[in-house]
């Protein structure tokens, strides 16, 4: 019985992130538009786009191989699994032990791996540009992320997200320098990973600046839909990751009852909204940087992460 309930919760959680993802993207767009004094598309516009794309036929380049057609599903699967393993409104999910934070990062890594391959598959110069820039960014962002994980794991004594979240909620945490550094680094990494300004601009097709868009340039129809969906899933994942690690309030334990869970969901949605808002504000307040300044940005993140890891030993909270 309990198992079935757990299954149910896990399923709800998966569906929740899946459904919320386009909404979040749309919300960010909306807020940005408003900040720019524009009307902007409605919040549910991404849903419409996705459905439209799904319905369209796929126009496949002649030089595309089977890999090109498999990749969207792979990316979607990997991202979705990763996203569904992050505690959103409740810790101790049924399958949370099946992969810890490192594994989640690795899952995202494999998604990126195949996306970059897809970018090179058709054999156009744009795809190449996108892939090479993407892997360059990743090669710095992933270690930075790893350092953040180290910091948190060393503090929480675990890489298991549920355990970490519970620990972060407990008073044992206190206020630490390394945590602050880690948060800063995490935000920087999140921005880079999701291809937001100032690293990349999701809404441009300007060859000199684009990274992600250049990779998916040849995609169309349902493939493109899946890729867009996984992109917004990724955004949700990162926001909820930051949420569950640094704003663990309202995160319900495994044995919580229905009303608690409902409250938890509400809190979670609130956090998402807050994150999206902050993101929008941040994005519309700064300009995109040149591609070759990105390494400095991410190098800074990496250094921050390493610093956080090392400072962890000196910054005890009690």
């Amino acid at each position: 019985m309990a198992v079935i309930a757990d299954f149910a919760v896990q399923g709800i959680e998966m569906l929740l992130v899946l459904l919320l993802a386009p909404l979040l993207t749309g919300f960010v767009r909306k807020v940005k538009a408003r900040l720019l004094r524009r009307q902007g598309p409605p919040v549910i516009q991404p849903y419409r786009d996705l459905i439209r794309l799904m319905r369209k036929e796929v126009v496949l380049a002649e030089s595309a191989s089977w890999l090109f057609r498999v990749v969207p599903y792979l990316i979607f699967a990997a991202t979705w699994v990763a996203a569904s393993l992050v505690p959103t409104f409740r810790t101790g999910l049924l399958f949370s032990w099946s992969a810890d934070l490192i594994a989640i990062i690795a899952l995202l890594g494999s998604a990126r791996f195949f996306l970059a391959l897809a970018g090179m598959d058709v054999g156009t110069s744009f795809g190449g540009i996108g892939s090479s820039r993407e892997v360059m960014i990743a090669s710095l962002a992933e270690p930075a992320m790893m350092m953040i994980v180290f910091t948190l794991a060393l503090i929480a004594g675990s890489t298991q997200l549920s355990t970490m979240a519970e620990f972060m909620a407990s008073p044992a945490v206190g206020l630490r320098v390394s945590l602050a550094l880690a948060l800063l680094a995490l935000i920087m990494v999140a921005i880079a990973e999701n291809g937001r300004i100032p690293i990349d601009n999701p809404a441009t097709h300007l060859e000199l600046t684009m990274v992600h868009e250049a990779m998916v340039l040849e995609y169309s129809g349902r493939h493109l839909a899946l890729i867009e969906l996984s992109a917004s899933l990724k955004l949700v994942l990162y926001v909820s990751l930051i949420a569950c690690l640094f704003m663990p309030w309202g995160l319900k334990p495994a044995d919580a009852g229905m009303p608690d869970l409902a409250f938890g969901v509400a809190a979670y949605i609130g956090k998402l909204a807050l994150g999206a808002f902050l993101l929008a504000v941040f994005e519309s307040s700064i300009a995109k940087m040149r591609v070759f300044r990105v390494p400095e940005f991410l190098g800074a993140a990496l250094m921050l992460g390493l610093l956080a890891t090392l400072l962890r030993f000196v910054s005890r909270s009690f």
Partner: protein
Amino acid sequence: MTLWITLSCTAILLLVAVFAVAAGREAAATYVVYGLCALAALTSLLATLQHLLGLAPPAIVTLPLGIPWLGAHFRLDALSAFFLAVVDLGAVTASIFAMGYGRHEEAPLRVLPFFPAFLVGMSLVVLADDAFTFLLSWEFMSLTSWALVMSHHRLQENIRAGYIYLVMASFGTLMLLLAFGLLAGPEGHYTFAQIRAAHPTAGLAALVLILALTGAGSKAGLVPLHVWLPLAHPAAPSHVSALMSGVMTKIAVYGFVRIVFDLAGEPAWWWSMVVLAVGGFTAVMGVLYALMQHDLKRLLAYHTVENIGIIFIGLGLALAFKTYGMATASALALTAGLLHVFNHSVFKSLLFFGAGAVLTATGERDMEHLGGLIHRMPQTAFVFLVGCAAISALPPLNGFVSEWLTFQAILLSPQLPAWGLKLLVPTVGALLALSAALAAACFVKAFGVTFLGRARTSAVQCATEIDRFSLAAMYFFAALCLVAGVLPGLFIDALAPISDALVGASMPSQIGTQWLSIVPIMASRSSYDGLLVFLFMVLSGTFSAFAIHRLASDRLRRAPAWDCGYPDASPATQYTAGSFAQPIRRVFGTVVFRAREHVDMPAPGSMQPARLVVDLRDLIWDALYVPIALAVGYAADRLNRLQFLTIRQFLSLVFAALVILLLVLAIWP
């Protein structure tokens, strides 16, 4: 009993080598020789596995060979059984691969006899139980592999590769010889049993560690002793490259483990720091070198260097924990390292097989001349992709598991009392993460440029799929990558006796855990379930595909590439390996390789194309090896003048010697 079986297998292999000398010219020889190799290796593999999984006690055999009063001692314990299994697994698959691949060999007599001998050398190193037998097999291994490297001797670069390889190999052997000299003492207690019994002093043990690190490291390819590796591995025929990269470097790891963990006595506090630092440095340097490479096989060879670094990080951690008596943590780190030994041997061999297939199909090793092979050789492309994903440590494949375990071990570092280690280990962790990310980048490049995109040369357009034997070998290893990725628990449990023997503890048994997940310490701390992740991905992928095709559209139309509206450009406009690596080269290369790019533009109106020239410098080579070569040359020139003296001058040399000796006598107390 098992030991007898394995020994007789090596004897059979020796006979096969002799047979190959005799009958190498016949056409069928290739099949016969490699077939026999596969059979012998398979027998030995089964026997070894039965010994390893059956938790059999160590078996000992002494033959009246070698040094007369010593005899040749052989011992099969858990450690050697594991490495022997790695050797035999590689041997079986390589032999099967070669049954197809070897037919393209133009001078089979230069390969066939040495291949079985090479296998013999590797197996005997693992089985040896006294210093003499160990070094004899070790050097024999180097010798035979050198002969294999020289098999395509008409290319001057291969000769150079073989030369550097052999010199470095004998350097390593001499270092190990010195180490064993120390351990054996002046009376020459050469058997490992005696060495274990004798407890060396701290200073002695320290010297042994350094010698073992240089000796085994030069064979394993630790930076800066790696220079021979990227030259020699590509030069050999691909199935041999696979063995050298996938297996022989592991033999070097075995040597290091055997000496440092088993023979050299109690580790001192700084040992682990040295090993960790070297390992981290090696990992990052290896992958950076690889990123700058356009030669497919050389790129793979540099990745061997990287992975050896990762393995040594694991060993260093194990050493650190062992020093402070944290047995379980040490067991975790050691298991991580050894598991990576196995994993790397699998996917690196697989990748070299793939490279060999590409080489036979197109005759090209330079990626800049390849591209679009996924259309011509889809199956090779698939297995190669699996290998790339595995070596890039992507879940749910095996490479990820060992790296994950290593990370888990790193996360135990705060429990270490020593502050130096507390700070060093996370830094090494950062290096590990960096190298992992860069490796992924590098294999996007390798696979993307080689197999994806459009064909860059005509050589690719007429490429055809490789033969069945080769494909079988590659599929087998690809499957193994997946199995070891989704069911790591089985492999971890198999390694338990080793860590029990070496560090006095082992990881908790992984078989009992729910859903076959692996739990290094405790479930609340960290756990990973490759099987479940795999199932999840398969399910959600198929589910989404099914749903979309059903509910939405599954229509599809072929059309020219969009490419932002530019009409179809020539394949030359694709991103090349060089251009792909450019961003990373700008980030790291300017420091590490003094990378400089300069464009020389033709004069206005002239027709020749503008060129982008990138020059990289191998600082390690320039700083370390060039000076040595120059010094030797200088000394040789100076001394060579003595060849051209007159008789009278020679006489005066004799005269001087006499007078000096008499003076010595005169002033002798």
